[in-house]
């Protein structure tokens, strides 16, 4: 809609608000190169010492690996569980498919603080607190709704005649799914992968309830660090995380278009 010229007042206002929106992300970059031992802005001196400091911090490093492995496992499981479920809901249309769809995406409606507490109470009974398996299960509760949504949309928009054509050419239902349906869903699968990975990797509230001294994720470790001492180490770490996010976003954008994946 470029028919209506944008007034200068709106341009200035929007620009100011964009600065406000991006300020906290922009500001961490200079701080990450601070030479001070505590956080102040602008820094009184500059250095790159905080980047190596991250890798010297055992807690952060182990939390990073936990988060990475966690996000990987959660993403793989989300696809393995979400894909058959989406297929069943969209293609086999069992009775009550719509109700089941809303039930499976309902965890997104619950505030994570409530969901976190609810899961904490139940999981504590099974000894799942502060375990990797417990974290995986808790993260799946919030990543699966995203997976179901994106994959269902991807499946629902596929042209069915193409699958029928494969069947007439002699492909069994399983072969049709493997050779035709799955490749055609590529952008939906890439979107789901990116979304589940980022949601799991950035998830902090559920993780706060599920972690303990024995196991921690990166966002939780960062949270505790900021709570105790807001030093430039977290800024350096933040810059690395923003770069990681950017890489994921670019990959998704290349393969399927970011706007398509996150905004309808």
């Amino acid at each position, binding site marked *: 809609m470029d028919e209506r010229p944008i007034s200068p007042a709106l341009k200035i206002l929007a620009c100011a608000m964009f600065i406000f929106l991006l300020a906290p992300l922009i500001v961490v970059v200079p701080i990450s190169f601070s030479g001070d031992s505590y956080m102040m802005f602008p820094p009184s001196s500059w250095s790159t010492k905080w980047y190596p400091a991250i890798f010297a911090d055992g807690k952060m490093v182990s939390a990073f690996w936990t988060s990475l492995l966690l996000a990987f496992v959660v993403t793989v499981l989300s696809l393995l569980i979400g894909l058959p479920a989406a297929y069943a809901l969209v293609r086999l249309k069992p009775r009550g498919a719509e109700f089941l769809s809303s039930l499976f995406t309902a965890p997104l409606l619950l505030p994570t603080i409530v969901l976190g507490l609810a899961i904490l109470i139940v999981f504590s009974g099974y000894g799942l607190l502060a375990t990797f398996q417990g974290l995986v299960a808790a993260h799946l509760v919030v990543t699966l709704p995203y997976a179901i949504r994106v994959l269902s949309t991807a499946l629902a928009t596929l*042209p069915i*005649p*193409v699958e*029928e*054509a*494969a*069947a*007439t*050419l*002699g*492909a*069994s*239902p399983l*072969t*049709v799914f493997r*050779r*035709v349906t799955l*490749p*055609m869903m*590529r952008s939906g699968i890439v979107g789901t992968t990116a979304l589940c990975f980022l949601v799991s990797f950035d998830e902090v509230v559920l993780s706060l309830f599920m972690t303990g001294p024995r196991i921690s994720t990166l966002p939780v470790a960062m949270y505790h660090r900021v709570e105790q001492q807001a030093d430039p180490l977290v800024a350096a770490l933040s810059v690395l995380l923003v770069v990681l996010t950017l890489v994921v976003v670019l990959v998704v954008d290349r393969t399927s278009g970011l706007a398509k994946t996150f905004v309808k």
Partner: protein
Amino acid sequence: MTSRTDAPEGFLSIRSLTKRYGDFVAVDNLDLEVPKGELVAFLGPSGCGKTTSLRMIAGLVPATSGRIVVGGGDLTEVATHRRDMGLVFQSYALFPHMSVARNVAFGLEMRKVDKGEIAKRVKEAIALVHLTGKEEHRPAQLSGGQQQRVALARALVIRPSILLLDEPLSNLDAKLRDEMRNEIRDIQKRLGITAIFVTHDQVEALTMCDKVVVMNQGRLEQLGTPVELYETPKTAFVASFVGRSNRLTAVARNGAAEFAGQRIAAPAGLEGPVQVMIRPHRLGLSPASPAAADPARQQVTGTVARAIFAGDILQYDVDVGGQIVSVELATRGGESVIEPGRPVTLSWRPQDIFIYGAAA
């Protein structure tokens, strides 16, 4: 209607095929025998059940009842991928993520044909549809007509027992459509393949096919050669759907149809309101003069309501007792246009008029 007892057993044999969706009957008790090597059209308006019938033959829609037999084997309960039929879709349904060659090779790969053989047959099939050189293109890089050819090659390369074509030409522009019509017919004849061609376009059905099945509201209206359908339509629906017809109403009594006070012979057994059909270009028109009546022709009189000179033809709308009859005369040069308001005589050969009970 064809009945199973007097028709010869065909290569494809459809027996009492029915499809119901709840109360809606999409295909009603269809019986059909298709001899080997024939191209048969399923012709009808949208919603007549022609596509549903085709999809049941392909196994994409399960039949509610009835049998589908090919070469003596009952396929009714056989899954699509084991039916060995080639289907060309209206939307082409090419695999967007595969090259032209991979699209064509797909069916052969499913049949576990060995690699060398696949390469050879894919090459032949692509040459058959004149796409040599486009093997590595993706479907999205091809024009509509080219995509259509890939779809055809993909369906033919598996040497299917039956080739099914679902409105394959409806997404092409007029010029390409004429071209593909001839090409599909040539290939089908050359390969001697049994084929079913679903279309709503009577020109396609008449020009391409050995036989035409006219369908309406799930039922088979008439099966016949294009000439039979055109010259001896068995129902009012066929008469109006195949070719163009004037459709008039009359009242039948004692073996004659009464028509604004004028009588014409009608088939015995018809009583009450009837429909009278006659094709505009099978009518003769002359200034009214009872003396010139040709005993071999039937005739009525009317008044010219409108006269249009359209180059190739001279078109008259003639008012016959309040009903408008359209007449088309091929121009030969030198004729004078009869002015509106003038009385005229319409005449025709008895075999050109069709009279049906009004219920049809």
